[in-house]
C-alpha cells in the first residue's frame, strides 16, 4: 500500500543564518517510497526523522531515521503496517554540522524530535568503536569533522598520540607489568577509560575474550614449576615468594595474549592470530595441550579451536576431525627458552628456567616423543580435505603439522563466516544477517590487502564502514557488557579510576571478569545474556556510588563537567542540567516523560517534596540517570 506521509510544513523562519540551515520545505513523496524535499540554503546534508502516526497522536516525537543524507531525496525501505502510517521530518545540516530547525506546528510549537541525529549518532559511534562518550572523543569527532573520519583514524591507532595522555600513561605505569588477574582487568579498565585509541582497547578486549584463557588454571600450572621451598633453595626451582612468582608468570602470559591480539588486529591476519593463540603458553595450559600425548590424546583444545576459535559449532567438522586434530596437537608443551631459541619449538629449553638472571621467554615447545606421528586426514571427504602424511622420524615435519592444520582450518569457508559474524555481533548488531556477513567475508578474501587473506584491520574496517553500522535504526540495539557499562560511566562524568578497588568488585558482582572466565567460550556478546535483575541492580548501584565518590582512584566530578560546559549548578537550572546530561549519556534521546522524571528528581528532596536542589542532589541525579535503561543500551 502507499504509505501516507504526514508532511509537517510550517512557516519559514525568515532568518538568514550563516550557521544552521533554515527549515526544510516541500517535503513530499514523489514515489511510493521516496521522500523528496526542496534544498535549504546552507545545508550540505539532511537528517530525516520518522515516527508512526499513532506515535504522533500520542505525542511521541519522530526518531532519527537517516543521518546526513546527501541530496534532497531519501528512499525509505519500510512500508508501514496496513491502516498505519509514518510521519517524517527533515532538517538541514550545515557543513559545520549545525542542524537547522525542524519547524513548528500550526500553533507555533516547535516540532520535537527524540534525540537529534547528530549527538545520537556521535554517541552511537563512540559506544560501538570504544567505551562511549568522553570529552576528548567528542572533541576529536568535531575536529575531524565527521564520524567516518573519526572511525578511520581509530582504525589506525598508531597515528593517535598517547604521549601527552598522562592520565593513561601514569595509571598504566602503576600497573605494568601486571602481576595478577586483578591487574590484568585493571589494564582493560584504565585503557578503556583513558585511552584515545578507543578502538584498539575494544579490539584487544574482544580478541582476548574470543581466545579466552583463564588465570587460575594457568597460574596453577606455573605453581607446579615454582614449588614452595622445603628449605632455602630446596628444591632449586623453588621460590620463596611462592605462589606470587608463579602468578606473575601467568599474568604475563595473558598480558602477552592481549598485546599480541591487539597488534595483529591492526597489523596482521587471522591466521597469525590463531597461531599466536595456539602457541600461547596460557592457551597450551588452559585447554590441556600440555597433557595431550600420543596414545592418550586429550581432545579439549582440538574441539574448542574448531568450535570456538575458528569454524563455529555448525562449521562442518566432525568428531573424527576433533580426534585427528587432537593427534596433531600431541607433543606440544611450553617452557622457557633463550631469546635466540624462542621461535623454535624444537630448540632446547632453559634447564635453569627459574633463574630470571638468564634472559629468556616462556614459549611453545615441542616434544617429538610425545607426538602421534601417524598420518592424519582432516575434513575427510569434503572439498577441504587435507592429508598430513606420516611424519615419524622427522621432528621438523611434526612441528609443521600444526601449521598445516591451522592453514586448513583458516582456509575452511566456515572460518571467515564464523569470525566475521562474531565481529559484527560485537560492533554492529547482535543479529547480523547473511548479506552483512557476506560483505565481511568478501573483504576477508581480498588477497590484495596488506596482510593478504584474513587481514583483520580491513575486515574490521568493512564492518565499521558498513551502512548497517551507521544505520540510525540500530542505535541502542545492543546492550553494554558490564565492563562497557562501568567504563562508559567513568568516561561520561570525568571519572577517575586505577582500575582496581570498587570497579573490580562491581565487575565481579555483575559476573564479568576478563581473564577469569573458566568457560572456554569467553563472555557472551549477546545482550540477552546481560539483562537480568542482578545485572541491572549492580549497574544502578555502580552509578549511585560513582556519582557520589570523589577519590582519585575511584571517583567522578560531574559538577566540574557541568561548569566547564557553561551549565550553572545553581538552583533554577534543572532543565539545562538534565538536557546537558541527557546529551552526554543518551545522545539526547529521552522522551518528554523521561526528561521530566529527571527534572522532578532534581526539584524534589528525598521525601519527594518540592525543594531547592544543591550540589549533592545534582550528584544524586547523575547516579539516577546512570541507572536509566538507556544507559545499558548502546
Amino acid at each position: 500500500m502507499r504509505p501516507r506521509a504526514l508532511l509537517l510544513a510550517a512557516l519559514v523562519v525568515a532568518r538568514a543564518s550563516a550557521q544552521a540551515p533554515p527549515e526544510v520545505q516541500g517535503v513530499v513523496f514523489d514515489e511510493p517510497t521516496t521522500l523528496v524535499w526542496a534544498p535549504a540554503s546552507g545545508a550540505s546534508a539532511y537528517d530525516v526523522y520518522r515516527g508512526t502516526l499513532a506515535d504522533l497522536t500520542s505525542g511521541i516525537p519522530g526518531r532519527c531515521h537517516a543521518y546526513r543524507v546527501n541530496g534532497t531525496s531519501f528512499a525509505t525501505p519500510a512500508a508501514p503496517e496496513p491502516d498505519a502510517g509514518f510521519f517524517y521530518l527533515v532538517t538541514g545540516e550545515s557543513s559545520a554540522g549545525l542542524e537547522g530547525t525542524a519547524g513548528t506546528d500550526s500553533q507555533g510549537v516547535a516540532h520535537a524530535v527524540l534525540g537529534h541525529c547528530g549527538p545520537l549518532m556521535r554517541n552511537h559511534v563512540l559506544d560501538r568503536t570504544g567505551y562511549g562518550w568522553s570529552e576528548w572523543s567528542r572533541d576529536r569527532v568535531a575536529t575531524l569533522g565527521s564520524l567516518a573520519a573519526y572511525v578511520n583514524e581509530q582504525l589506525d591507532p598508531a597515528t593517535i598520540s598517547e604521549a601527552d595522555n598522562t592520565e593513561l600513561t601514569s595509571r598504566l605505569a602503576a600497573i605494568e607489568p601486571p602481576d595478577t588477574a586483578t591487574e590484568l582487568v585493571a589494564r582493560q579498565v584504565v585503557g578503556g577509560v583513558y585511552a584515545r585509541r578507543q578502538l584498539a582497547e575494544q579490539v584487544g578486549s574482544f580478541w582476548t575474550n574470543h581466545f579466552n584463557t583463564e588465570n587460575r588454571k594457568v597460574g596453577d600450572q606455573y605453581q607446579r614449576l615454582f614449588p614452595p621451598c622445603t628449605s632455602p633453595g630446596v628444591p632449586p626451582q623453588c621460590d620463596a615468594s611462592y605462589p606470587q612468582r608463579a602468578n606473575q608468570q601467568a599474568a604475563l602470559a595473558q598480558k602477552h595474549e592481549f598485546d599480541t591480539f591487539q597488534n595483529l588486529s591492526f597489523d596482521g591476519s587471522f591466521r597469525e592470530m590463531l597461531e599466536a593463540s595456539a602457541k600461547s603458553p596460557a592457551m597450551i595450559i588452559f585447554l590441556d595441550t600440555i597433557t595431550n600425548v600420543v596414545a592418550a590424546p586429550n581432545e579439549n583444545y582440538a574441539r574448542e579451536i574448531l568450535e570456538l576459535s575458528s569454524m563455529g559449532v555448525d562449521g562442518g567438522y566432525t568428531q573424527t576431525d576433533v580426534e585427528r586434530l587432537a593427534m596433531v596437537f600431541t607433543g606440544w608443551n611450553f617452557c622457557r627458552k633463550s631469546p635466540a631459541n624462542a621461535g623454535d619449538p624444537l630448540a632446547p629449553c632453559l634447564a635453569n628456567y627459574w633463574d630470571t638472571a638468564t634472559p629468556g621467554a616462556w614459549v611453545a615447545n615441542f616434544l617429538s616423543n610425545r607426538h602421534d606421528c601417524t598420518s592424519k586426514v582432516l575434513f575427510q571427504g569434503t572439498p577441504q580435505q587435507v592429508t598430513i602424511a606420516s611424519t615419524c622420524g622427522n621432528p621438523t615435519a611434526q612441528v609443521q603439522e600444526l601449521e598445516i592444520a591451522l592453514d586448513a582450518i583458516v582456509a575452511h569457508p566456515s572460518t571467515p563466516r564464523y569470525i566475521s559474524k562474531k565481529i559484527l555481533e560485537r560492533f554492529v548488531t547482535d543479529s547480523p544477517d547473511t548479506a552483512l556477513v557476506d560483505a565481511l567475508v568478501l573483504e576477508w578474501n581480498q588477497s590484495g590487502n596488506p596482510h593478504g587473506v584474513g587481514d583483520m584491520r580491513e575486515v574490521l574496517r568493512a564492518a565499521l564502514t558498513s551502512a548497517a553500522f551507521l544505520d540510525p535504526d540500530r542505535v541502542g540495539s545492543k546492550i553494554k557488557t558490564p565492563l562497557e557499562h562501568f567504563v562508559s560511566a567513568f568516561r561520561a562524568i570525568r571519572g577517575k579510576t586505577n582500575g582496581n578497588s570498587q570497579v573490580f568488585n562491581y565487575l565481579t558482582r555483575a559476573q564479568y571478569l576478563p581473564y577469569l572466565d573458566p568457560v572456554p567460550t569467553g563472555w557472551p556478546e549477546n545482550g540477552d545474556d546481560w539483562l537480568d535483575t542482578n545485572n541491572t541492580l549492580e549497574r544502578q548501584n555502580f552509578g549511585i556510588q560513582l556519582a557520589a565518590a570523589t577519590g582519585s582512584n575511584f571517583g567522578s566530578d560531574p559538577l566540574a563537567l557541568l561548569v566547564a560546559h557553561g551549565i550553572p549548578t545553581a538552583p533554577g537550572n534543572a532543565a539545562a542540567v538534565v538536557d546537558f546530561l541527557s546529551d552526554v549519556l543518551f545522545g539526547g534521546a529521552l522522551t518528554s516523560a523521561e526528561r521530566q522524571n529527571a527534572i522532578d528528581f532534581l526539584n524534589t528532596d528525598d521525601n519527594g517534596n518540592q525543594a531547592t536542589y544543591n550540589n549533592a542532589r545534582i550528584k544524586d541525579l547523575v547516579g539516577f540517570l546512570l541507572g536509566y535503561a538507556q544507559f545499558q543500551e548502546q
Partner: protein
Amino acid sequence: MGKKRNALQHASACSCSRRLFLKGCGVTLTGFGITSLFPTPFIQEALASVTATGDKRLLFIFLRGGNDGLNAVIPHGDPDYSAAHRPTLFVPYSAPYDLNGFASLHPSLGGLLEPFAAGDLAVVHRVGYANNSRSHFDGQRIWENGDPTQAQLFEGWLYRYVHDSALSAGVSLPVLSVQATPPLMLRGAERFVNVADPDDFSYILTDPKLTKFKSRWRSEYAGLDGLEVYRPILSQTGVKLVDTLDEYAAWDQASWNPLDPNTGFSLFPVSAATNQAGFSTQSFDFFRSVKVCALSLLESTGASTNGTRVAGTQLAGFDTHSGQGQLTGVQAELFSWLAYAMKSLRTVLSGAATDPRGYPSIWSNTVVVTLSEFGRTTIENGSGGTDHAAASCLFVAGGSVNGGVYNCDASTWPAGVTLGVQGRYLLERTDYRSIFWEILRDHMGANPALADTVFPGYTGAGLGAQELGLV
C-alpha cells in the same frame, strides 16, 4: 509457539532493522505495547486455565561442564567399567555404596544413601539424547531449551511450562534462579528474577533516598518506550527488580541457618561459622545458592499468591579433561557438595531441620532434580581425565518420587552400552525430555496437552514410551 514469545525469544531470531524486526515478528506497538505489560503479567495461553499447579514445587541443580556419570553412579555390573579403560579413575567396588547389586554410588556421593534408603531418591542412568554434538554450549542449550533439533533456540522448556501454565499470572516471584546469570531453561519473553549474590541483592541506599530512587526508577523502566530490541526485556527487568527487593529482603536469608537435627551441623555451610561439615571455602557460594532456592520454596505456601514454585541453581566445574580424580579430586569434591546439599534439602524441606522458623514440610510437594549437558568418555584420556561424550546420570529426589535405580541394572544395561556410541561413549536409553516431561506432568500437574509445546515434537518422537514413572 505463540507469536509474542517468538518475537522476543532472541534478538538474533530477526536480523533486520528494528521496524522490520517488529513487523516480521508480529508485534506492533499499538497492539502490544510494552507499557501494557504492567502491572498485569502477560496474557497467558488459553490452556492455562485447565491446570491447577497448586502447591507443587520444583528445584533444579545444573551440573555444568558435563558430569562423568560413569564415576557417579558406577555400573560395577558391567566389566567394561574397568581399570583397563580407566587406569587412574576406576573406582573399586565398595559394598556400603551398593544400590542394587549392579550400580553403586561414588563414595563422595554417600550423602545420597539416606534419601535413597528412604525411597525418596530416583537414580537415573543413561540419560541423554541422540546425536549429541558433544559441544558444551550446544549441549547445555539443548538440555535447557528442550529441543535437540534447534541448538540455537534461546527459550527454555521450563520457561514454556511456567508461562503456558500461567504459573506466573499475578505472581510476583513465581520463579527464582540463584546463579551468575539466568539459566536458559528459564529464559523467554517474560523475565524472571535472578539473584547472583544472595548476600548482595539490594540497593546501596537507605530510606528515604532509597524510596525516591526506587519509585522514580520504576516509573522510568515501566514507561520505557521505543523500538530498540531490548526495551521489553529492560522494562520487565527494571520493574521486577524494584518490585522484588522488599520481598526478598523480608526472607532475611542471611540470618536463616537451619541445622541438621542429628549432627547439629548447619545444613548450608555458607561461612566459616556454619562450616562444621568442613567443606572448602569454594563451596560456600554453591551452598548459599541452594539455601536461597530452598528458602524461596519454603516461603511459598499453597495459599500464597506470591509464592515461588520453581527455583534453581548450578554447580560448575564438571569439565574434567584433566586431573578428574578418583576417590578424591575435583569431581569427588563437587560430588561431596552436591550430596550434602541434596541431603540437606530433604531435611529442611521435610520440616525436619532444627530451625526456629519452623517451616512446615513441603517435601511431598517438591521435586529436586539434577541435570548436566553430557557424560564423559568411557575410556580415560592421557591427562587423568575424560573428554566430552554422550549419556550421563541424574538424580530426582522428593517425597513423592518413586525411589530406586533406573537404567542401571542387568535388564537395562546390556553388555556393550558402556562403549555403545562409536566405541567410546555410553549409549543413552532415556531421552532427557521424557524425564522432565513426566516430572512436569505427574508432579507439577502440567496439562498433558502441553507436551508438544514444552518439548516440541514430544509426541511425534514417541518419547512418552521412554518415560520411567519417576513420580
